[in-house]
């Protein structure tokens, strides 16, 4: 449907039928304080009965309302083919802080996990910035980021509208006063999710699987623990966000199975960047990017030796987990526990 076609919804359909078919139209009416107009009429007929003064408060006349209605419906009708389909991302090196070239060209495919390591201030955020704005040699680093092997023009970059990259970091909190269920439903609605109920359920179960301590759908999101919040954010990003790229900035150790969390995102065919100094996470990735002095100095494959040590690291991690749980339960920590 193109924008003009939506006008038929306003002229040929009663508002009642319109709301049945497009529930989101109720928001359009509420935004303009038109919720109580006669529903048996079509929108264009009903507008004839509305006081023009109210519309003027919104800077609109009757025609303007119909035009906004078409724009609104166009914006909130899910596109059949996602305009943001990303199957690969290519990073072509630019310059580091000293102006030396990064000799690098790396293509990353959906489902791949890349860890980013390097000291604080080494330029990790500059790299994440370049990815977020799809740099085309025009950022301070001079890097280029190609999508599906192609360069993008400015218009295409603008079209991404902030939907390309989903972010997840340690500093994030929930600020809405909603229960877990309400929160997920609200997000599903904004994503125009079709099987909202099922997706919400899936998301909830998955978040509980990731979280060390279980929570209920009626728990307020602001009352969740750090680990539970992170688990919910990850499950939500996996099942509801349609951003093809996920940037993760360090996930804390406590209260969440972080490896499982990242694998979950990869399974959802996303490209994942994890900025971390946690060996377990870094070695669970497919590749590791090392950053120094504002530049990527190398991209490492995870070697066989590293893969072997992963198991030992996992055991260490499990031991730490056992110790944490014992602390929580009020038990004592003994040397024997460390030996196992």
């Amino acid at each position: 449907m193109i924008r003009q076609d939506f006008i038929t919804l306003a002229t040929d359909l009663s508002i009642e039928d319109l709301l049945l078919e497009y529930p989101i139209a109720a928001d359009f009416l509420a935004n303009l304080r038109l919720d109580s107009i006669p529903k048996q009429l079509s929108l264009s007929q009903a507008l004839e009965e509305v006081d023009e003064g109210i519309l003027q408060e919104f800077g609109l006349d009757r025609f303007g309302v119909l035009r906004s209605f078409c724009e609104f419906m166009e914006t909130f009708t899910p596109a059949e083919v996602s305009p943001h389909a990303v199957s690969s991302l290519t990073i072509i090196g630019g310059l580091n802080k000293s102006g030396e070239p990064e000799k690098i060209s790396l293509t990353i495919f959906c489902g791949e996990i890349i860890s980013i390591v390097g000291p604080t201030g080494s330029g990790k955020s500059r790299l994440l910035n370049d990815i977020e704005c799809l740099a085309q040699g025009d950022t301070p680093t001079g890097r280029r980021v190609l999508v599906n092997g192609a360069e993008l023009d400015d218009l295409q970059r603008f079209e991404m509208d902030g939907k390309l990259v989903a972010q997840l970091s340690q500093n994030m909190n929930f600020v809405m006063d909603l229960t877990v269920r309400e929160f997920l439903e609200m997000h599903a609605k904004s994503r125009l999710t079709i099987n909202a109920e099922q997706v919400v359920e899936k998301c909830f179960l998955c978040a509980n699987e990731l979280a060390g301590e279980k929570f209920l759908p009626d728990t307020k999101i602001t009352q969740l623990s750090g680990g539970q919040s992170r688990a919910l954010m990850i499950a939500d990003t996996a099942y509801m966000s349609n951003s093809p790229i996920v940037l993760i900035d360090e996930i804390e150790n406590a209260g969440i199975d972080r490896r499982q969390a990242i694998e979950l995102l990869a399974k959802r065919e996303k490209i994942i960047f994890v900025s971390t100094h946690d060996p377990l996470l870094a070695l669970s990735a497919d590749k590791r990017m090392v950053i120094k002095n504002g530049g990527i100095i190398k991209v490492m494959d995870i070697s066989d030796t590293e893969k072997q040590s992963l198991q030992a690291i996992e055991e260490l991690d499990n031991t730490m987990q056992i110790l944490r749980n014992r602390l929580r339960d009020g038990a004592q920590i003994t040397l024997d526990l460390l030996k196992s």
Partner: protein
Amino acid sequence: MKLITVAGPPSSGKTSVILKLIECMGLPKGSVGVVKFDCLTSFDNLRYREADIPIQTGFSGKICPDHYFVSNIDDAVQWGMKSGFQMLITESAGLCNRCSPYINGIFSICVIDNLSGANTPRKIGPLLKLADVVVVTKGDIVSQAEREVFAFNIKQVNALAKVIFINGITGQGSFLLSKHLQQARDIHTLRDMKLRFTTPAAVCSYCTGETRIGDSHQMGMMKKMEFKEL
């Protein structure tokens, strides 16, 4: 000279966004000026001075901020021209959700913050509805889901706007905003150009200093609330 108008609720991060934007554009020192329209006091001029950015501050005081804006904006443009700026950015605080200091044909940015409540975009009105770009700040401390819900609510009111998330502390996102500004056109004056939306109407006795309450003291343009019998 290019003119950019930036507006948004108090403490939404307008000054930080403008500072990061100027830094990111990399224009020669002294070629970007700022005019700040505020109400009673302002401390933002210090932050601009610190960054070596020419700044003029005006206080609307007892006048409606939008009326104050429209009666001074062309003088601001003349000041900018005289100072030899390549770009002039105006910053004004929208205080009553009815403010809309935007001009047809002049690039306009609305700044709102992600902590202000999920439904806030739907309540802001012309300030948000008529902007070309909506910048969302403080998104780094809320969840991805809340950012997406917030962007959705912005689109509900301004379906055609571009939404850009900017971190006012690190400047992340300001690069994309600077790219958008390339569309801003050059002007010499605003004479005979038009506001995108009327300013709040008010010529009543209270505008002229009346403080007493009651019908007999109310004159001029009034809007009365309707109270239904229970």
